[in-house]
């Protein structure tokens, strides 16, 4: 074999195999977190390891549609993840624990199933916060028990109208945060029976009490969280008619993993927060439980690892604004 032939063979082999080997090496050294709709596998990987105090640099790409990345209970700007493109973010955790990351874009019917965990190890800086059971647990509420009220206000109760009556007629015990959180609006309406007010006036008073337990900033945050996370199913105006509602109802047992027939099927339609029979019979503690835990079998995801307690109370305060007329 001539030297030129040998040299050419070597150059061709090294160059071509080198291109492939280098590509594979660079690919292997760049760990990407792949986002796919839940039906396509969700997050991959869906468990990320991190250490307290050490910056965690993450690179994402979407293998199908637009997704978003955010870590629950953490102050961070959600990261948009575009199909075929790479987005990056750096996170630093100050406390050990298991954090939930989730998709922030309505990517598909099972969008809410797109979740994963960041396992943060290391020693905690500062004193650990005591863990207290959520209110619905200490009150012993049955989250799955129906809570309809047989009556409803004739019109939309007005907190502004109730305000005029509140100073003279309202018992101080009704205005405490503890009362608000542990009672349904219908219970307060019942408790106000002895005041001699008309039904309409009593409902206005209820609206006043519910409004007094909110702040404009809290309502604004609740509205924003609702729009980002809840409206896909429950609808922008709470009517249970979000963009996924029809598909959820049609998805049936297979999608929602229901096990007990027609009753469960009927539960798949997202809750209608504009329905007074439903909402006025629900206490904030009950709603907190449903949001924290989610509704097993109904498609309602659990938000306990994503929202902070304060965020949940703000969402709940906003939910009641679909029933009550709060002054702007």
């Amino acid at each position, binding site marked *: 074999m001539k030297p030129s032939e040998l040299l050419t063979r070597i150059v*061709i082999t090294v160059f071509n195999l080198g291109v*492939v080997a280098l*590509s*594979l090496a660079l690919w292997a050294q*760049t760990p990407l977190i792949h986002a796919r709709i839940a039906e396509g596998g969700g997050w991959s990987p869906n468990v990320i390891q991190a250490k307290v105090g050490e910056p965690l640099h993450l690179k994402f790409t979407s293998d*199908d549609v637009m997704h978003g990345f955010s870590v629950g209970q953490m102050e961070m700007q959600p990261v948009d993840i575009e199909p*075929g493109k790479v987005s990056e973010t750096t996170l630093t955790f100050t406390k050990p624990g298991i954090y939930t990351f989730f998709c922030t874009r309505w990517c598909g019917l099972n969008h809410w199933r797109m979740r994963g965990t960041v396992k943060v190890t290391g020693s905690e800086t500062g004193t650990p916060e005591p863990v207290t059971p959520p209110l619905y647990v200490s009150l012993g509420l049955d989250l799955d028990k129906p809570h309809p009220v047989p009556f409803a206000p004739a019109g939309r109760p007005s907190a502004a109208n109730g305000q005029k009556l509140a100073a003279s007629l309202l018992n101080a015990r009704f205005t405490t945060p503890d009362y608000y959180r542990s009672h349904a609006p219908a219970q307060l309406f019942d408790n106000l029976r002895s005041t001699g007010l008309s039904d309409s006036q009593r409902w206005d008073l209820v609206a006043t009490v519910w409004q007094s337990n909110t702040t404009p900033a809290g309502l604004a945050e609740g509205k924003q969280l609702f729009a980002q996370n809840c409206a896909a199913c429950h609808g922008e105006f709470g009517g249970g008619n979000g963009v996924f509602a029809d598909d959820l109802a049609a998805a049936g047992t297979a999608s929602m993993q229901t096990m007990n027939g027609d009753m469960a099927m009927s539960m798949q339609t997202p809750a209608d927060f504009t329905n007074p029979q439903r909402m006025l019979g629900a206490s904030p503690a009950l709603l907190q439980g449903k949001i924290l835990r989610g509704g097993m079998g109904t498609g309602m995801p659990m938000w306990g690892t994503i929202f902070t307690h304060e965020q949940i109370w703000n969402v709940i305060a906003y939910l009641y604004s679909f029933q009550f007329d709060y002054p702007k």
Partner: protein
Amino acid sequence: MSKFELTRFPLIKNLLKNRYPQLAVFVLMLAGFLFAITAGFVGTPVGSHNFSIVFVWIAWWAILILVAVPFFGRGWCAVCPIPVVGDWLQRGAVLEPAPKMSKWLNLRVPAKFRNMWMQNISFTLVALFSSVILTTPVVTSVVLAAMLFLSIGLSLVFERRAFCRYLCPVGGFIGLYAQTAPLELRVKDKNVCAHCAGKPCYNGSELGSGCPWDVFPGGLTKNTYCGLCMECLRTCPHDNIAINLRPFSADLAKPSAKLDETFKAFIMLGASLVYAYVLMGSNGSVKLVAYSVFSPAWFGYAAGFLAVIFGILPGLFWLSVKFGAIKTSSPGKQFTTAATALIPLGLMFWVAFSLSFVLTNATYIFAAISDPLGLGWNLFGTAATAWQPMLSSLVAPTQTLALVGGLAWSARTAQKSAPQAGISSVPVIVYCLAATFLMLWLLL
């Protein structure tokens, strides 16, 4: 019109005769090809951002159908990386001539397969699955890798380039349309070839391989089966090989089509019509059906596709030929000869279709070239280029021009070929006119 010999210039001749420039292009092409396969397997599954899809089906396709085929005929085949590995293995060398006794089986391809039918079938198969192949990187990589391994395998079993000549789904239509190209490889003097001892251009010599395309250059009358590999330029002991510039569609003046080539013309014509409707049309449900391979609806789509290319188009053309018959002649001969007019028509259909397809998607090239493996790189600062159609205001006028030009070209071809078929050119021109109206309606 006269021809203009390019190889009369020593620079061009030496550039083509010397093995190293072509080898350098081969090596780069092969590296790009292997990279595209790799990117398809490990890169993003999002087709519009994967190097394999963007560079094969947008960039390469644009170069092939808008530049290479119309102006250089089989120019692409001269640098195609797919057969080179098989070539090297078959010869047992990269630079050195092949040994007298091949190390491999070196069988001759059976006579019944020495035609374009296998290429017709392979193209049709790719076309039926094209919605998936063109959009799914991993499938593109599987197809590309399969072509590479098939070409290697066939090189080890059969003599010469069996894959290019008889199986390559692309090579068939390039050969068909290469007849219209203003570039050709021909011998300068056929008498020299007739008296040449040993015919090294066909049998090989210490200077190079015998024609890998199984063509005797002395008998070349059309571009269809000459791969422009330049081996005969290297081996000819009489300096009798020339690369010529010539008028467009020179090979069509004397129609010599056989039924396999004629059906290639129908397949290409029909595929461009179906693609214009399915891929460029606004009917999303049809796209979905074409994408849902092996679903019942897809079988309906496939049946429709096959009916168009093997039934409706040839059937209507057959009726046109029968209707326009002037002289009594072999109907088969009349059919194949008259179908010559469909060659420029089909080429311009593909040009028109590809213009919108390529210009609509060209911006993906900028993003893919900066981040070819989808790892977040920005090599040329263009990774974030947003998708937007290019020159969109020019697409419709250019397509119209291409289609009307194609119609005029095919009508002129029909005027020359129809008399040779013993039929009137009018029904053939009416057929071409109807097809052009249909394509205009589908695209615009």
